[in-house]
């Protein structure tokens, strides 16, 4: 499904700030895989997701989705395959535009934008149904500007936007880290619901080790630009957090060092 092959990315090449953010990373995902990613600060987790989404082109290596080579495609041409939710609730929506305008733009993800009225009553009905599932009362606020929503509401909306038109691959980069615990739970619950229902292939970065083990079917750990552990199957079912940290220390030769890390 997703195949990341020996991807190398160096920031500030040739300067004193040179930094190898991705060091020949290899990662293969099967259809319906829900993979959680953990690792220290600066391990290259976000960089990996950015490389897949096409925020920048990688120095070498290959990235393909369902056999389509996307290594050289600009971000906007990958949009038909990939959708994502960022950590910052502000970055996933256009604040000055209404809820329904944001939704219709997501509904047309990866398609050619035409010179025709964007929203019809058919789409509006669909949006109402989908918003109702969030349970936040947004279905009655279609024409409200997104800037009026709370962070949690915006993140829930962003998640809906990412999955409204089923993507081949869903990328989540600590998408609940900026929310209060209760809202974070709610958004995670929604994430689980939609990934299961649509059978999405998902990559989720998290700083919560408990979530890393309970959500999805596979956990990978990154360290200094490399994938150092890949846990799945029975090994994962039997895994505990302390055992996980032990394995990390053995594989990396250092402590997991993440300022946002939550152990349980």
């Amino acid at each position, binding site marked *: 499904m997703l195949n990341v092959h020996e991807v190398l990315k160096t920031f500030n090449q040739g300067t004193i700030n040179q930094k190898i953010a991705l060091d020949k990373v290899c990662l293969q995902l099967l259809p319906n895989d829900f993979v959680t990613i953990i690792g220290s600060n600066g391990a290259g987790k976000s960089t990996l997701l950015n490389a897949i989404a096409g925020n920048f082109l990688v120095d070498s290596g290959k990235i393909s989705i369902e056999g389509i080579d996307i290594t050289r495609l600009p971000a906007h041409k990958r949009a*038909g395959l990939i959708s994502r939710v960022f950590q910052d609730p502000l970055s996933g929506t256009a*604040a*000055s535009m209404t809820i329904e305008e944001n939704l219709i*733009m997501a509904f047309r993800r*990866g398609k050619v*934008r*035409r010179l*025709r*009225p964007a929203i019809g009553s058919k789409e509006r009905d669909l949006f109402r149904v989908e918003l109702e599932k969030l349970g936040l009362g947004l279905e009655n606020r279609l024409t409200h500007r997104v800037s009026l929503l709370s962070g949690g509401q915006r993140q829930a909306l962003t998640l809906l936007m990412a999955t409204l038109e089923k993507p081949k691959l869903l990328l989540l980069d600590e998408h609940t880290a900026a929310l209060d615990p209760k809202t974070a739970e709610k958004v995670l619950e929604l994430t689980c619901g939609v990934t299961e229902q649509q059978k999405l292939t998902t990559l989720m970065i998290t700083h919560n080790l408990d979530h890393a083990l309970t959500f999805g079917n596979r956990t990978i750990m990154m360290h200094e630009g490399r994938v150092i552990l890949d846990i799945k199957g029975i090994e994962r079912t039997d895994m505990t957090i302390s055992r996980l940290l032990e394995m990390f220390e053995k594989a990396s030769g250092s402590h997991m060092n993440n300022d946002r890390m939550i152990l349980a």
Partner: protein
Amino acid sequence: MFAQIALGTMEQGLMYAIMVLGVYLTFRILDYADLSVDGSFTLGAATATTMIVGGTDPWLATGMAFIAGTLAGLFTGILHTKFKITPLLSGILTMTALYSINLRVMGRANISLLGSQTIFSDFSKLPLMEEYGVFALSLISVILIGSVIYFFLQTELGLALRATGDNELMIRSLGVNTDFMKILGLSLSNGLVALAGSYVAQKLQFADASMGIGMIIAGLASVIIGEVLIGTSSIGRTIIAVICGGILYRVIIAVVLQLGLEATDLKLITSFIVITALVSPTVRKKIASWSAGVAGKEAQ
């Protein structure tokens, strides 16, 4: 006397409102302060007058002025998106280049249209339009252009344009080529500015190589005045606000002139309007936090 001045001011206000709509597209929709405007306004005037003097039909010449403007915007857009030059500098480069180009187009520093056929002289031949031809044609044009922009901004393409100015990263991740959207917005905007230039030149019956100087600041002032007085609660309302801002700006200028200030002082006044509008939110915040601080100390 007064009625005549009032009519003349309204006529000019409506024509400048076309320019202000163009500035609104870049400044507010794209969040891009485009300084090409000074050059493209003159470009529109130069293109239309030169063609009219050369014997071209004025309606066609006016259309060509619009197209010339879109090319200027295209140039700014390419400088910014393909060569990664900052918005401000891209605009300044285009504006500077256009100064020479405009002189080339005109062949001299100014052109008179006295006695030539213009879109206004044509329109005034229609029944009942003898006296109010300029006013009516300008009004129709503004309403038409305002409506087209209104509907355009609700289309799929229009939403993509608005999102490009609001959250570029997000709309790119939804599959929109934001470079293309910026170029499109800049082209449309400069096209409208040039169109306004061709209207103004035909009304004044001359074009001058320096007639566009300060146009961007006048445009910004108009947008801000309109938004403050009428509000921005929806796209439709904002468009109406921007048009009214353009008209009102000319009214303010006319009043100031009547009060005895020199025409050469206008640029100073315009800058002052923009500075006041830009500074007032910060000043208001400062005052608010200052008085909150005082209140806090008193409470202690």
